[in-house]
């Protein structure tokens, strides 16, 4: 499962500002009719700790404002039907805002339109609809920016050594996978098909396929010295192959799960980019509260944060160490 999000200064400042605005709005409008209302939160399958964290953050943020929430989640990956039914129910129940983590970018456009026609503010999290303007706004990881961070780090780490890169991808028709892939190449400063790319392989974003893909690539190109991986399980698999081949390779990844950050701490992964499901859920609910209470309506695609986590920082790229990472990671 891909988990997709910079805790830059900007995004750290944003929740604080939003919270402040919302608190002011609440206290100023204590007698306003929108003092309490219902918010719907539609997630993807909660067995994935990323989605569970996102939903919990949304519920907590709503609770902070004394608001009730109504939650629903898809049963398996890509299950948009359950989400459509959930949104229909939420429209009937008269929610004022919906936080949606769409299981499918196009399948939910119609029902979201219906909700917005009914005057409901719909904010997507984690990933946006196609087109993104189908919802009021989106709070998600800028995966292109995330890829660029590890691309730049790998480039700096190699220094003057000629690069031999392995790309461990996930299905590139997946928006997130493509953005991360393109971002890495941008950050490294090379184009698709550049001679620096020794080989690419398609993984299923898990340990097992990360391992066998890396074994095959290393067998074909023993000179590989930098690796991009779609997510941390794939990186952990790649490391098993690298360890067996006894190579010193700059291994990079994206996600910021606690397991991934531990791999940074023990030297398995050179650098990873953390994304922030908690920010997504909190920012989305705050935006809805502000808008419902007469404040500005949210708009656009907003980066919920991307931060480079590494214990080998390089000049010119802002990063945090694995200790900070362990305090801010998500999942197990």
């Amino acid at each position, binding site marked *: *499962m891909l988990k997709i999000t910079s805790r830059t200064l900007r995004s750290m400042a944003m929740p604080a500002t939003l919270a402040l605005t919302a608190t002011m709005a609440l206290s100023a409008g204590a007698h306003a009719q929108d003092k309490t209302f219902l918010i719907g939160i539609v997630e993807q399958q909660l*067995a*994935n*700790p990323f989605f569970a964290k996102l939903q919990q953050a949304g519920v907590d943020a709503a609770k902070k404002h004394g608001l009730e929430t109504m939650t629903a989640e898809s049963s*398996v990956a890509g299950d948009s039907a359950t989400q459509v039914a959930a949104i229909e129910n939420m429209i009937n129940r008269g929610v004022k805002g919906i936080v949606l983590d769409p299981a499918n970018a196009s399948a939910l456009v119609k029902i979201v339109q219906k909700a917005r026609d009914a005057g409901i503010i719909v904010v997507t999290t984690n990933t946006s609809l196609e087109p993104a303007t189908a919802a009021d706004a989106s709070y998600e990881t800028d995966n292109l920016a995330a890829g660029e961070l590890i691309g730049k780090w790998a480039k700096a780490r190699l220094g003057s050594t000629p690069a031999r890169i392995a790309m461990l991808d996930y299905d590139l028709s997946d928006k997130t996978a493509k953005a991360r892939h393109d971002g890495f190449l941008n950050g490294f400063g090379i184009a698709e098909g550049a001679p620096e790319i020794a*080989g*690419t*392989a*398609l993984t*299923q*974003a*898990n*340990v*097992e396929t990360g*391992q*066998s*893909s890396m*074994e*095959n*690539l290393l*067998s*074909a*190109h023993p000179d590989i010295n930098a690796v991009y991986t779609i997510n941390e*399980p794939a990186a*952990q*698999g790649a490391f*098993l192959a690298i360890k067996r*081949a006894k190579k010193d390779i700059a291994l990079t990844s994206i996600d910021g799960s606690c*397991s991934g950050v531990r791999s940074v701490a023990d030297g398995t992964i050179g650098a990873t980019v953390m994304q922030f499901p908690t920010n997504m859920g909190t920012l989305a609910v705050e935006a809805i509260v502000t808008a419902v209470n007469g404040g500005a309506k949210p708009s656009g695609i907003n980066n919920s944060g991307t931060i480079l986590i590494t214990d080998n920082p390089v000049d010119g790229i802002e990063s945090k160490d694995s200790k900070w990472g362990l305090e801010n990671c998500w*999942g*197990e």
Partner: protein
Amino acid sequence: MQTSDRVRTDTGQAKIDAEPAGSPPAGLFAGLRRAATGLFAYPVTGPLVALILILIVFSVTTSTFLNAGNLSLIFQQSVVVGTLALGQTLIILVSGIDLANGAIMVLGMVVAGSIAANGDPMLGMLVGLAVCIVAASINGLIITRFRLPPFIATLGLFTILTAAARLYTQSRSYPINSDFMTILGEGPSFGLVTITYGSMLWIALTLVLAYALNQTAWGVRVYAIGNSPAAARLNGVNVNGVIFSVYALAGVFYAFAGWQALGRTPIADPSGYQIANLDSITAVVIGGTSLFGGRGGVAGTFIGALIVVVLKNGLTQAGIDSLYQQIATGFLVILAVGADQYLGRGQRA
């Protein structure tokens, strides 16, 4: 049943003498003979020639394919699917199919992994084995008692067990630290070449199963049921009993496959091996076992599993996009089944 009435080939198949046996119970032999018409040589030579051709092509077209390190890697990469495919072969031989085998293996692995994480790897392994056998037996039970088509029964179990493994683990994976649980990934090493215990185990399991299928009465019944359950039943074979035993035994192989998987990748991960079920079917089919049942064997499956892995490995060495690798594998499957259809029709006419 007298073993002297059967002629063995070295192709992992039992062949029944076409001449009347002349010894009681004559009915059984007549039935088995009829049933065995389909058994006639669908030799393992087809897959073997294909494998050798593929090996030659990659050796000539790439500079990195043909070296001892890479060849030992291919063996290591084959063991999991190869072991799963042994169970799958049994099931396909009785005209069944198992879409749940990967999910059964993964559930066994995560249960074993979670118990091992609490400090008892031996208990974990035993419970994992039990999980695999029970789950596989549920398949057998649904298919024999309730007469559900194997495709549907195992598709249902596949869906249930995939979700169950996620729920059980809360989508977490368990790193394995026990040497015993990961021993199959170890083995004598010569430079970059490692002959893992897992590779040895895979070969041993293949030999044991080939023996059971070719040298025991149970094996003959398996082939007989695959050819014609009605004929087998008429001849006194407990068809449901044998089919159930096939599914339950397959569970033992899935448990071994899970052990192989922990040796290769020391982590019990509920998101792993999502398409191992299809890969195992691919290995069986490319290995020349008929999806209609009754023809083929584990020697072919052994080669079939190697072909699946060699294709992926060799095409990567040749720098060919992974999507084309999948296309190549798909073509091979269609080719293998097409050949089977063609031969099957010829023999059964």
